[in-house]
């Protein structure tokens, strides 16, 4: 909106800069650097250097225009490159930039300007604080007619049609810029960007150069296959996300040339006079002109679920927050009641909503560690196997083998030994995880989010809409002085279920609740549509649920006058007349006050005088309901008399109704499950702390201990260090504005925790993005929330989150299993080659055999291990230590020792072969087959770190692994018994004794490895060394600091 105001308030920046002018002389801040090409200009902007904020301002503001194709500002050089519609005057572009710059200069605080001159401090990517958006024009501080004057529009006639067209050209359509989705090319290129893949490519080239065309083709095939799988799965996921975005185009009623017209929401321009009616979205930011009982649900913007009452008066002061600007309505919010006229003051990217979307772009999520680790592990394996291959090559040369023969052997060994399956396994597993979660209605937006899900240590839960159903409901009544519980199934009193029609007291209470109520009721298809305040709607809803004909009742008791609640009068009353001249006064309001007006109460249809004890009972029940965080209303009525002022009546007391936004079913159990899985739960709410406490207690957020609540409306002004320190203890953040959710997430991250965060409002965007796992709701959420979230719960059920966690943990474990398998078997291949060549026992495996092992024994079982079902106790374990590498040192040691056992078995068979047949294909066949089979068996060993063939608890079966192993064994048998295949691999048919030796050489290592696993896991149980979150957090923080320094 800033540009607009600039133009309107100060027209000195006229578009007169000459095309070739080296500088825009109206404003020395903008200098044209290069404008030789039509539709393309490079300008230098003073004050842009080192100012990220200026960069954003320029980019966001410029791209808000349709005629600007792209704008990129560099805070390093101070230059802005703008591509624009070639039909537009260059001067206009420059004037636009000048306006933005001047505005930014005057609106940015002096400290920011001076800071911009200093070299920017390196910000930590993970916890960079979001700077506030540029301050917008204070429309809420102006009188309505001032706004009209500024916007050249008439409050009564609206804009002229041609003026609207011109404005549309200048300000662009009223649409929010959509964040660009990842392109197919970038997804594809991403697949080749890993060291093992590059090395494979290099070795393919080498193979081709040394005449091993077949090897080269096979290697390339492996690479392409990996890339293909990765590309397809990632693109599929990206497509699903895109398809989720809704592209609804709401229409708007505007006044143009004095007539009301229906226009597309995207053609609104500043100055348009807009008609607001219930149930519609507000299509742009607008200043109210006149209203009738207008209420707006601003939860998408402010997170506040109770609608805000709006009015054009008064002119507000400077220091009012967005939620308090009652004379403004904002794009993306919903009209819940009443009607109004408003003048559009901002459209598209210039709206508050657009600003927030622009802000969302700033917060970058911390990278999940696994991809990095796998890269690092891959690199290490490359160096290790590369070194060993060199060693084999050198020893071979010394031993007198031919140069070319050894080079090719070394290269094939490298190919076999480099775990090129590693990225593939990870990618495939993660995408399979995405698929499987999709079946549970969990949509995962990024591959690595799957893995992060498994390490989540804290989950921040947005109260409204996530924990509660985001709709006020009546939860309790007191009628006939009897407490009554209300739930979806009906009313329940002390004596069981209550039929409201059989209980006069209840029925009268409901009648008065409906009559003393301004909710508009309309029928839409088969359902009633209620328009009114959240509280009144809830009362009408209860009456409808109880089977009361609301419209019939209201027709019978025609509304005569309404007395609203006032400053010192905390109740409202309505006077009703019937056809036969009968009068009814219905009163609803603060229980103590209404009770004070009453002299009577109804008991079993008879009027009694209210005694002091009965009054005390009412007040006690009132206090009890309030203590359960219910909003309590009292009801009373009078009949027959003439006055409409309740004070002159002796009212008859009916009872109480307690309302709240009810907690979703199953949430309490879910919180328990999170706690069992070692995940801390944090509730974030805009509620007062007493309400928050009642909910927190009901949900058991604190486990059993005390409940810690941090109450702050201005978290951003709290010292981040202190906030981070206390945030680790806090169960509830109360009175937090949605924008401050970011501070909560960052404070927790700063304490070294892996944070998941739920949210569905527009304002949740920055926090969702900054969280390690941002969780959005599918249907309830806004586009922005869905766009930035890592995980989308499509059925809006938070319960699926625990499934996602379980899945995430399982997938992480499974990737470990695959890596375990790949590493151990690859090491065994290297060890067999190295030891036999250095011992002078010839070359046990030829090139094709190595590639065969690589293709058959490596990939299929590794993939099958990646889809292992969850281990039984996966949700009873604490989250893994995020600072712990996916493969620890002790894991590598174990993989090494296992591979040595495998090597020993193979070498034993090979030595037997040499002894019996001498060095040659016969012994080679024994070594090859023993190694292959023992590796296949080893896959079973890799299914669990703790459970083995010797342990009591069985793992759930993995069909895919059985299939993979069966198939692989069959193929392996084929190499021995199918002559063509046998010839290609240079094998000879084995004798029965050979087969027995192979069987022994392959199964003995399996049994030995299983036995040591059982022993090891027993020893570990004795130590029970689960690292506490605190120490792991400290470690992780250390790592982050290191990374930041690096």
């Amino acid at each position, binding site marked *: 909106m800033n540009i607009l105001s600039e133009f309107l308030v100060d027209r000195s920046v006229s578009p007169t800069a000459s095309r070739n002018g080296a500088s825009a002389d109206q404003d020395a801040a903008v200098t044209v650097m290069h404008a030789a090409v039509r539709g393309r200009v490079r300008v230098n902007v003073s004050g842009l250097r080192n100012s990220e904020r200026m960069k954003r301002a320029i980019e966001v503001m410029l791209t808000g225009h349709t005629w600007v194709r792209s704008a990129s500002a560099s805070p390093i050089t101070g230059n802005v490159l703008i591509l624009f519609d070639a039909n537009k005057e260059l001067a206009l572009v420059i004037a636009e930039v000048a306006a933005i710059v001047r505005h930014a200069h005057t609106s940015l605080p002096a400290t920011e300007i001076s800071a911009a001159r200093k070299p920017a401090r390196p910000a930590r990517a993970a916890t960079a604080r979001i700077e506030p958006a540029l301050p917008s024009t204070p429309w809420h501080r102006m009188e309505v007619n001032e706004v009209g004057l500024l916007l050249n529009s008439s409050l009564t006639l609206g804009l002229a049609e041609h003026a609207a067209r011109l404005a549309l050209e200048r300000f662009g359509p009223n649409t929010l810029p959509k964040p660009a989705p990842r392109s197919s090319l970038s997804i594809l290129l991403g697949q080749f960007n890993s060291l093992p893949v590059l090395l494979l490519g290099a070795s393919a080239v080498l193979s081709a150069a040394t005449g091993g065309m077949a090897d080269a083709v096979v290697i390339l095939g492996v690479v392409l296959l990996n890339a293909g799988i990765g590309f397809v799965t990632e693109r599929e996921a990206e497509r699903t996300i895109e398809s989720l975005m809704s592209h609804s185009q709401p229409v708007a009623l505007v006044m143009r040339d004095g007539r009301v017209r229906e226009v597309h929401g995207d053609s609104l321009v500043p100055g348009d006079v807009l008609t607001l009616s219930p149930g519609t979205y507000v299509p742009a930011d607008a200043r109210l002109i006149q209203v009738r009982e207008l209420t707006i649900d601003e939860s998408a913007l402010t997170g506040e679920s109770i609608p805000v009452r709006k009015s054009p008066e008064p002119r507000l002061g400077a220091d009012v927050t967005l939620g308090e600007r009652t004379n403004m309505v904002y794009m993306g919010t919903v009209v819940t009641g009443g009607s109004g006229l408003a003048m559009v003051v901002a459209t598209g990217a210039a709206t508050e909503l657009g600003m927030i979307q622009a802000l969302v772009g700033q917060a970058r999520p911390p990278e999940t560690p696994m991809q990095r680790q796998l890269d690092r592990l891959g690199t290490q394996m490359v160096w290790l196997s590369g070194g060993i291959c060199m060693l084999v090559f050198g020893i071979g040369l010394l031993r007198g083998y031919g140069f070319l023969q050894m080079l090719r052997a070394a290269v094939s060994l490298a190919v076999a030994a480099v775990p090129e399956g590693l990225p593939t396994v990870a990618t495939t597993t993660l995408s399979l995880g995405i698929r499987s979660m999709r079946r549970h209605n969990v949509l995962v937006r990024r591959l690595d989010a799957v893995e992060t899900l498994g390490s989540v240590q804290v989950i921040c839960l947005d109260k409204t809409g996530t924990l509660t159903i985001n709709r006020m409901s009546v939860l309790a009544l007191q009628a006939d002085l009897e407490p009554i519980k209300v739930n979806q199934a009906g009313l329940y009193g002390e004596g069981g279920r209550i039929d409201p029609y059989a209980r006069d007291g209840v029925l009268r209470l409901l009648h008065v609740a409906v009559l003393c109520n301004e909710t508009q009721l309309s029928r839409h298809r088969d359902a009633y549509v209620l328009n009114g305040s959240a509280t009144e709607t809830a009362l009408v809803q209860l009456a409808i649920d109880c089977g009361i004909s609301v419209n019939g009742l209201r027709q019978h008791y025609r509304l005569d006058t309404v007395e609203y609640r006032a400053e010192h009068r905390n109740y409202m009353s309505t006077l009703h007349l019937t056809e036969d001249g009968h009068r009814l006064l219905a009163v609803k309001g603060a229980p103590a006050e209404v009770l004070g007006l009453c002299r009577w109460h109804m008991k079993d249809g008879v009027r009694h005088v209210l005694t002091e004890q009965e009054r005390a009972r009412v007040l006690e029940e009132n*206090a*009890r309901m*309030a*203590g359960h*965080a219910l909003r309590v209303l009292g009801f009373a009525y009078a009949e027959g008399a003439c006055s409409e002022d309740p004070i002159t009546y002796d009212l008859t007391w009916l009872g109480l109704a307690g309302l709240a936004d009810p907690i979703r079913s199953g949430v309490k159990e879910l919180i328990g499950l999170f706690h069992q899985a070692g995940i801390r739960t944090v509730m974030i709410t805009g509620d*007062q*702390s*007493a309400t928050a*406490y*009642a909910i927190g*207690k009901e949900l058991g957020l604190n486990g059993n*201990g*005390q*409940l*810690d*609540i*941090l*109450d*702050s*409306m*201005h*978290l951003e*002004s*709290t*010292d981040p260090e*202190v*906030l981070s320190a*206390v945030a680790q*203890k*806090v169960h509830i953040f*109360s*009175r937090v504005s949605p924008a401050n959710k970011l501070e909560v997430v960052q404070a927790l991250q700063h304490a070294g925790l892996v944070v998941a965060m739920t949210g569905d409002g527009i304002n949740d965007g920055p926090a969702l993005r900054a969280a390690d796992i941002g969780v959005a709701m599918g249907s309830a959420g806004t586009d922005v929330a869905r766009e930035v979230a890592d995980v989308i719960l499509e059925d809006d059920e938070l319960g699926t989150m625990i499934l996602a966690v379980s899945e995430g943990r399982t997938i992480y474990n499974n990737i470990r299993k695959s890596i375990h398998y790949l590493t151990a078997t690859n090491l065994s291949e290297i060890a067999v080659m190295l030891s036999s060549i250095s011992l002078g026992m010839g070359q046990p495996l030829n090139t094709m055999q190595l590639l065969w092992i690589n293709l058959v024994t490596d990939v299929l079982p590794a993939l099958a291990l990646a889809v292992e079902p969850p281990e039984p106790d996966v949700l009873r374990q604490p989250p893994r230590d995020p600072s712990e590498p996916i493969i620890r040192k002790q894991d590598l040691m174990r993989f090494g020792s296992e591979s040595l056992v495998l090597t020993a078995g193979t070498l034993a068979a090979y030595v037997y072969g040499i002894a019996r047949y001498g060095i040659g294909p016969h012994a080679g066949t024994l070594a090859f087959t023993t190694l292959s089979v023992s590796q296949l068996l080893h896959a079973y060993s890799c299914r669990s770190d703790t459970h083995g063939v010797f342990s009591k608890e069985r793992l759930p079966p993995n069909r895919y692994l059985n299939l993979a192993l069966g198939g692989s064994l069959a193929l392996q048998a084929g190499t021995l018994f199918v002559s063509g295949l046998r010839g290609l691999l240079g094998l000879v048919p084995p004798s029965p004794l050979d087969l027995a030796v192979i069987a022994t050489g392959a199964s003995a290592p399996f049994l030995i490895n299983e036995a040591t696993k059982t022993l090891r896991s027993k020893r570990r149980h004795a130590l029970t060394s689960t690292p506490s979150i605190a120490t792991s957090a400290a470690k992780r923080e250390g790592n982050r600091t290191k990374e930041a320094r690096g």
Partner: protein
Amino acid sequence: MNRNFVFSSESVTEGHPDKLCDQVADAVLDRFLQQDPFSRVVTDCAVAKGILFIASRYASRASVDVPDTARQVISQIGYEGEDFNARTCTVMTSIGELADRSQPAVDESVLDNQGIERMTARNMANVFGYACTQTPAMMPLPIWLARKLARRLASVRRQRSFSYLAPDGKTQVGIEYRDREPVRIHSITLIASQVRGQNISPDRMREDLYEAVVRPTFIDEAIAPDGKTSFHLNPEGPFLVGGPSLHSGLTGRKNAVDTYGEYSRHGESALSGKDPSRIDRVGAYAARYAAKNVVAAGLATECEVQLTYAIGQSHPVGLQLETRGTGSMSDDEIAARVLRVFDFRPAAIIRDLGLRHLPNRTKGGLYRRLAAAGHVGRLDIGLPWERIDRAAVLRDS
């Protein structure tokens, strides 16, 4: 015993961070007792770096918005600056419900003797009460004057007589004693914080403070500053902002200010934030009640009563009475009379002083007002333990 000496006591304004914490703790207590007089509440409060920490444990039927209560206190005290104010400060509450129901909520006023006997002390405590004839309130003169100055300073700020004054402040009064009787004012120190951005010369501020705070304080006092009294009004120059953004605060760190300005002994544990079932709080009131009645009865011109409670016993296990030689009879005899007239059992104290219902009977709550300006020696509110209704019985028994 040295009979000629100078003794000084300090006091602080209600905006001092320690006092702020005391007031928040007691305001929470007031709210609980107003809704449910039989609430059991322990509240501790600390403030640092603009964050208020409140730990509250309770067993109560009441529902209290603790942060809201705290914000009200902050707002009433008058913190409005950017550094610390009611609206933007962060409040961290740690709320726990007391599961221990071993002593259920009972109404002490309806208990018989055996019932009272069963209500034993649940804390070990040494509590002290003191009274003397130095002032009409039967308080030592130094703390009396120091408090009076502090209240005057606070009210001058509240009336916005000087726009530059901030809520935090401190006073100290030194009194010269001759033969254990106050004879003149030795020195007066006043430290008043000021808000940011108002340049006021130190001399001007000193003059304002003297005219608006010091002089009115002594109008109705028997002893006023003389020519030799030394004044230290903001002696170290301007005290900018003050309050929780500058220094931290903690409940129970101003026990001397709350009681007798260290002229007599005082208990170590905090008085604020504890409900009447805490003997370490109400014992101090009972001891003051006894001491004041002893002095009022003319049995001595000064009297210190010390009670020792042990967990599991209802009667105090020890009572010491010290008149510093001013008694009209032996200390032992006075002590015996005190024991005959006063029932020091915890439930009896609550009953006799009506401690559970005071917040409901006093406008704006009672305990918070105690925390703001002293728990004993208050003439501005009718405190049960300031009554001298037992003096006659003591004299005659």
